[in-house]
């Protein structure tokens, strides 16, 4: 069955062509349907076709949720286009719904006039009941606002893989490949890299490989046939004129792992990674176990506390200690972070934030650990905090975290989030020789007068020497108790504690002098409004500010990487704007830090739904500052604004 919506007819008539600048596709199905795999493969083919892209995997916390249920739906969204793409897109143009539950939970997001591709084979009475549909939406006319292409993908897949003699259940597992084949046809993609990938993955199971390829080809062939009538049309999205060089796709978790390896190499140190499984941080551990030739030791500890303590132990012994977790695990590590700060040992702590409090939303994204990162320890325990803005930026942030940790003998927290960790984007592979090395030197000889050792003697920046156990003659004791100036011997006298607290704060403050000044990433250095972001809100803020500027609005985008200490020029920079708007996926944490540090009237814009900001939400918020500006009467933006830039843009 196929229907074309009136909206689509008129949109096609207006645009007069089928080569959009960007397209958003969402694959949604049961968590067992392989939607993440389909999305990943489609991402690869999109990158190979030279489009810029961003993805958003959105899956349930349950590993195998009961089949057909609303909470068991797993989705993968990709936004790709012929110009710079920085978000996974607001409203999908195409929704692939593998069952009624997938349709129900994702339909609300679909752009009016968008295309629904549905597998009728799964719209049984039983599945409709599970999705709480009283009538079949494919047949009751409720989808009239959208284009609909509904056919029995299940049956077509079984037919396509028949020669391979698979059981019904196994045959149906190839449904995702059939769907991928159709998607590849729709967007004019080369099938060969995917076929090569399937052959490599199932090298030892040629029947499974053959069946998957047959399903892929059948889906592709179906597109050719179906185009003859109905809503299905082939779209070609032009490739992005990209800087020449070697490219790959990279997720945040991959980029962080690579950045940590690079950081340790630049420091000239072996790396010790202590971790404990937790969503969404585990991927970093999984990546690092594969790169042991770089002097990486991985340790899956008995708990989060042991993971960080072992990492600190390794740092004490002269390696670069790294630990990684998500909010709940970071909470457990708090006391040990204090010890690293107190003993002044380098350590990198990666926090892949997720929705909280407590277990919260394990697989959804949030930025609500900023207070925890900046303030979340007992005592006056200052600690540098860096936030990555995108998957590829995570690579450079991880190197930066390693650099600060070893140059300032301090624990450093690197903030990322579930969105960055799982999302993929194309990345121009950097040349390692372009990185500035920061080799570490250990103290080898006594550094005090009269042949004495002063383990806590500070240099001009307030940094103490790093002394490895095993170094002849430099035996000394360190610990979490307050320590005397220079010698580090136990001393909790009033003057000592005052002086050492000041020294530890001064040292971390000095990091601001060794990190770049804050830049304006889009717009002017002064003006009516600045939108200040940090972390993974980069994409939607950037697009929203870009669109607002195209409408002539005087708005700038500042994106802060160094959360603590803040860049030394940030206060003056923000004071140059009439208004400061801080969108965050929390209840206003960075806004509070900015108010506290600069006494400026930073205004919050908050979202804690577990989903990233939509560009339209940010555009609406920006527009409120520009009442009376043509095109923004009442500070409103159209309800159904989409990722597709308007023709006049």
């Amino acid at each position, binding site marked *: 069955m196929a229907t074309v919506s009136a909206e689509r007819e008129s949109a096609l008539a207006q645009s007069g062509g089928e080569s959009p600048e960007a397209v958003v596709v969402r694959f949604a199905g049961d968590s067992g349907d392989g939607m993440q795999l389909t999305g990943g493969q489609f991402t690869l083919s999109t990158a190979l076709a030279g489009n810029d892209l961003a993805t958003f995997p959105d899956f349930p916390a349950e590993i195998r949720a009961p089949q057909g249920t609303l909470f068991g739906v797993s989705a993968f969204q990709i936004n790709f286009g012929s110009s710079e793409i920085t978000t996974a897109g607001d409203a999908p143009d195409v929704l692939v719904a593998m069952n009624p539950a997938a349709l129900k939970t994702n339909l609300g997001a679909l752009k009016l006039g968008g295309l629904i591709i549905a597998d009728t084979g799964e719209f049984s009475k039983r599945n409709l009941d599970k999705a709480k549909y009283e009538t079949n939406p494919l047949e009751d006319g409720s989808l009239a606002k959208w284009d609909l292409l509904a056919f029995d993908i299940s049956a077509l897949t079984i037919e396509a893989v028949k020669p391979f003699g698979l059981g019904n259940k196994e045959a149906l597992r190839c449904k995702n490949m059939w769907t991928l084949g159709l998607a590849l046809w729709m967007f004019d993609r080369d099938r060969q890299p995917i076929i090569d990938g399937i052959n490599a993955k199932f090298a030892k199971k040629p029947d499974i490989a053959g069946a998957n390829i047959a399903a892929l080809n059948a889906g592709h062939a179906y597109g050719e046939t179906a185009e003859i009538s109905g809503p299905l049309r082939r779209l070609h999205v032009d490739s992005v004129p990209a800087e020449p060089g070697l490219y790959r796709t990279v997720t945040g978790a991959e980029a962080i792992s690579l950045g940590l390896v690079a950081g340790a190499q630049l420091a000239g140190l072996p790396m010790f990674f202590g971790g404990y499984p937790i969503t969404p941080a585990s991927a970093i551990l999984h990546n690092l176990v594969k790169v042991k030739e770089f002097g990486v030791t991985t340790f899956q500890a008995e708990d989060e506390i042991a993971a960080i303590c072992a990492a600190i132990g390794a740092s*004490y012994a002269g390696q670069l200690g790294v630990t990684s977790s998500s909010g709940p695990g970071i909470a457990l590590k708090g006391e040990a972070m204090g010890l690293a700060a107190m003993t002044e040992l380098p350590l990198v702590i990666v926090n892949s934030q997720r929705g909280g409090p407590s277990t919260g939303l394990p697989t959804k994204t949030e930025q609500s650990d900023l207070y925890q990162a900046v303030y979340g320890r007992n005592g006056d325990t200052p600690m540098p905090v860096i936030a990555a803005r995108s998957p590829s930026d995570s690579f450079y942030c991880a190197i930066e975290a390693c650099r600060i940790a070893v140059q300032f003998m301090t624990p450093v927290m690197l903030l990322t989030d579930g969105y960055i960790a799982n999302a993929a984007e194309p990345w121009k592979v950097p040349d390692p020789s372009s990185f500035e090395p920061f080799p570490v030197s250990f103290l080898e000889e006594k550094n005090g007068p009269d042949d004495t050792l002063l383990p806590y003697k500070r240099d001009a920046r307030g940094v103490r020497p790093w002394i490895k*156990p095993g170094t002849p003659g430099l035996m000394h004791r360190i610990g979490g108790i307050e320590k005397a100036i220079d010698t580090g011997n136990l001393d909790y006298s009033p003057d000592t504690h005052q002086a050492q607290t000041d020294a530890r704060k001064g040292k971390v403050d000095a990091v601001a002098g060794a990190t770049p000044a804050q830049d304006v990433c889009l717009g002017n250095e002064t003006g009516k409004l600045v939108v200040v972001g940090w972390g993974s809100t980069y994409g939607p803020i950037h697009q929203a500010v870009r669109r607002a500027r195209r409408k002539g609005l005087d708005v700038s985008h500042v994106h802060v990487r160094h959360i603590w200490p803040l860049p030394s020029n940030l206060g003056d920079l923000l004071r140059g704007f009439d208004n400061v708007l801080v969108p965050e996926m929390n209840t206003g944490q960075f806004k509070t830090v900015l108010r506290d540090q600069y006494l400026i009237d930073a205004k919050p814009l908050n979202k804690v739904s577990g989903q990233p900001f939509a560009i339209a939400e940010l555009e609406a918020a920006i527009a409120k500052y520009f009442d009376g500006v043509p095109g923004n009467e009442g500070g409103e933006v159209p309800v159904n604004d989409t990722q597709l830039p308007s023709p006049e843009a």
Partner: protein
Amino acid sequence: MNEMTKIETTLKDWETDQEVRWCPGCGDYAILKAVQRTLPQLGADPSKTVFVSGIGCSSRFPYYVESYGFHTIHGRAPAFATGIKLANPELDVWLVTGDGDGMSIGGNHTMHVLRRNLDCQILLFNNEIYGLTKGQYSPTSRQGTNSPSSPIGSVDRPASPCAFALGSGARFVARGFDVSKNLPDVLKAAHAHRGAAFIEIFQNCIVYNKDRFDDFAAAKGVEDQQLWLENGAPMLFAGGTKGITMDHETLSLKIVDVVDGDWQSAGVIVHDVTNRAVAYMLVDLRVAPKFREFPMALGVIYDDPKPTFDSDVVAEREKSSGGRVADLGKLLGKGQTWTVEG
């Protein structure tokens, strides 16, 4: 402990210039001296020795030993020790903990360092009380212990550190007490063992739990209540007039009289440090209610080495890297890539 070049030192070389801050008369002084006396006998190198501790009275220990030392956080010393040893397997790692630190807040880490078999010596000072927080009952306090947090007697049943260690998979379990002249020998045996060597040291907290172990661990006069175990020797005590034998009906241990030194005809068992089943019973002597009348088993109860965690981790790292050369450029450009032509 791993192979090392032996270094000539004296007891003095292992003393720091720091004032020792334990209460006068504390059992910790005797343990400190025993360790400082033992280290020269081992040929230990202060530059390659690391004492790691958690929190509590016992955990101040590293400050008083002239080696590398790390006074960490409560209960977590085993995790720090793991990181240290994995980062540099050449180091000789000693872990000092107490009944609160090692059996309560850090019980989890004690279990895992033992099951992993990290090559280190673990000295658990058991005084059956929280000393540094002023005398609350601890996880090893006997039921009915009066303390500020249990004024009419503690309700909790106690944990038994050596039984816990065996249950956790320890390959070396020994016991000693603070003022025992045999303590250095127990320390030496622990040091000679490759892997995690667990020693429970009964320690007299003279302020909050004074003379708690006097029935078997007083400086003198209670030798009859001590069963000093020696590999290959019969389990005799009370000057050789009594011994331990197996009651074949109950499959349990029992005490027998030994007449004129003829332990063979009395059926006294010869101690085999690799016999795990017997070790499980030995650690219960005098501790478990049914063995209350037995002497306390002291010395090396169990010693049966297995490959260590640190050596296995090194081997796994080599195997995992599969002879690959570290090439960062190659790593960054791994996976499916594409080239944009200029």
